[in-house]
């Protein structure tokens, strides 16, 4: 019994890898080969799809747009959430519990509910089709998440640390920047990872709020499916490339990812 325990995770990982392999397999085929022949690996191995993506600006600007607003959103969310998480963790103040739950309700709001009003709202303040619009709109779910995770990490730091610093004559901001932030730097890293991740995978709002100038890669892909219909090879190559940023960042947080999903509360 114990001998075969490794089988369970192995089979599970194989199941996870199979669709990803299939996507990679397709990305190295030409579209004609995909439609006409069924094969477990490319018969005529080609980089053509990837070359198209890296040379055609409608494709590669999609990646740049995505990365641009994701980074903007990550910095904005964490910077705003850090003092708020500290306040929620350390102090009682008027309406704190209600405010905390109100923040969470925004994480729970179905983006489909907000799609149309967001479009109208951002159009009316002249931010439609800008990176800022997407970065700001993703704050709707990323800030509550960031506050939630950071609050968990901050509550794990004993309050004595703050008090000792004050006794030693530190002012609040000097303490916060010189001592406190370095103490929870791991928590900040994980929070940034989660903000990055949820902004990267979200499409509904990003697509609603952009047309040309700030169009994310994921939306460029849906356009290809609906208009020319059968560019499957290109679609597969573009999809494969969207996996890479996630695969890179995940390596750095591999030991903390579970703690992050547990909202800093393991």
């Amino acid at each position, binding site marked *: 019994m114990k001998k075969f325990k490794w089988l*369970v*995770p192995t089979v599970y*990982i194989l199941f*996870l890898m*199979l*669709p990803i392999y*299939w996507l990679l397999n*397709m990305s190295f085929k030409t579209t004609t080969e995909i439609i006409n022949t*069924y094969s477990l690996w490319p018969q005529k191995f080609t980089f053509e799809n990837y070359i198209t993506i890296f040379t055609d600006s409608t494709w590669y600007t999609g990646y740049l747009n995505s990365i641009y607003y994701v980074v903007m959103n990550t910095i904005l969310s964490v910077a*705003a959430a850090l003092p*708020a998480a*500290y*306040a929620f*963790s*350390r*102090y*009682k*103040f*008027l309406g704190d519990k209600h*405010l905390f*739950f109100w923040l*969470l*309700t*925004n*994480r*729970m*709001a*179905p*983006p*489909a*509910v*907000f*799609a*149309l*009003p967001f479009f109208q*709202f951002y159009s009316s303040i002249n931010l439609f089709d800008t990176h800022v619009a997407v970065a*700001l709109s993703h704050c*709707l779910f990323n800030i509550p998440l960031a506050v939630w995770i950071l609050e968990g990490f901050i509550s794990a730091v004993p*309050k004595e640390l703050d008090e000792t610093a004050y006794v030693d004559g530190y002012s609040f901001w000097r303490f916060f920047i010189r001592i406190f932030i370095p103490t929870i730097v791991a928590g900040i890293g994980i929070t940034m990872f989660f903000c990055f*991740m949820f902004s*990267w*995978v979200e*499409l509904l709002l990003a697509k609603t709020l952009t047309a040309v100038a700030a169009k994310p890669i*994921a939306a460029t*892909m*849906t356009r290809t*499916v609906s208009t020319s219909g059968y560019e499957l090879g290109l*679609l597969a190559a573009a999809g494969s490339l*969207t*996996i890479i*940023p*996630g*695969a890179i960042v*995940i390596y750095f947080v*591999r*030991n903390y990812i*579970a703690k992050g999903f*547990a909202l800093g*509360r*393991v």
Partner: protein
Amino acid sequence: MNKTINQKAWFFVIPVFILVAFNAVVPLMTVVNYAFQETFGNNVFMWEGTRWFKQILRSERFHAALGRQFLFTGIILLIQIPLGIAIALSMPKKGIGVPICLVLMSMPLLIPWNVVGAMWNIFALPEIGFLGHTLNDLGFDYNFTQQIGDAWFTTILMDVWHWTSLVVLLSYAGLQSIQPAYYQAAEIDGASKWAIFRHIELPKMKKVLTIAILLRFMDSFMIYTEPFVLTGGGPGNATAFLSIDLVKMALGQFDLGPAAAMSLIYFFIVLLVCWIFYNLMMRNEEQK
């Protein structure tokens, strides 16, 4: 932790408050606006009272979408939670296997949602996809674009593929926090495997599992992009979950009034369930 009362803490919260309120309040008010009025464009509104709400609450279309949504969420919770726990229990506890498992298992979580849908589309298509082709070779008459049962099967399999790892990671983190002394004590007592699971591992996982169920409920109840790309809600309306139906109504048919009323009802249901969970979670935390 003992918290000191400090009203100045509001200053720390203001940036977050402004940013979220900016995104939440105006759009939500727009929805409320549409929900109680009739509009013919050009900012001309007529008061309709609760007519849209009555219309939605009585409409069979909404009942069907709501039913599909609860069925879907129920099925994926019933599959993902036990499966996630089982996989976490059999994962290696130390050594090189740990980072390999964690990184590979997290992969699906980081793929943009429409890529997940597109990936499963080409994976499951009967002519060109591995899954579709294999199932048909084995003698099943499988075609998820035509048959309702197959569409459901594929959508559920896709969600299991996409999100089970979340439950695995959370359960694993819970298991890792158990001191070896507990296991040694259990061994001395001659406790069975089931007893160890029931009385040591499960209680330790209670907190993370509450979070897992909360997150999985919320996200599966809001699911839009993946089934939209995979099946487009079809065949017919068979996989048109609440969000898909809502977007169809609001952007496709431009029935803004009923769509807004439906949005509010939808939001209210999510809110209610999450409020219950949130209180459960906070109670867990206070016990600690």
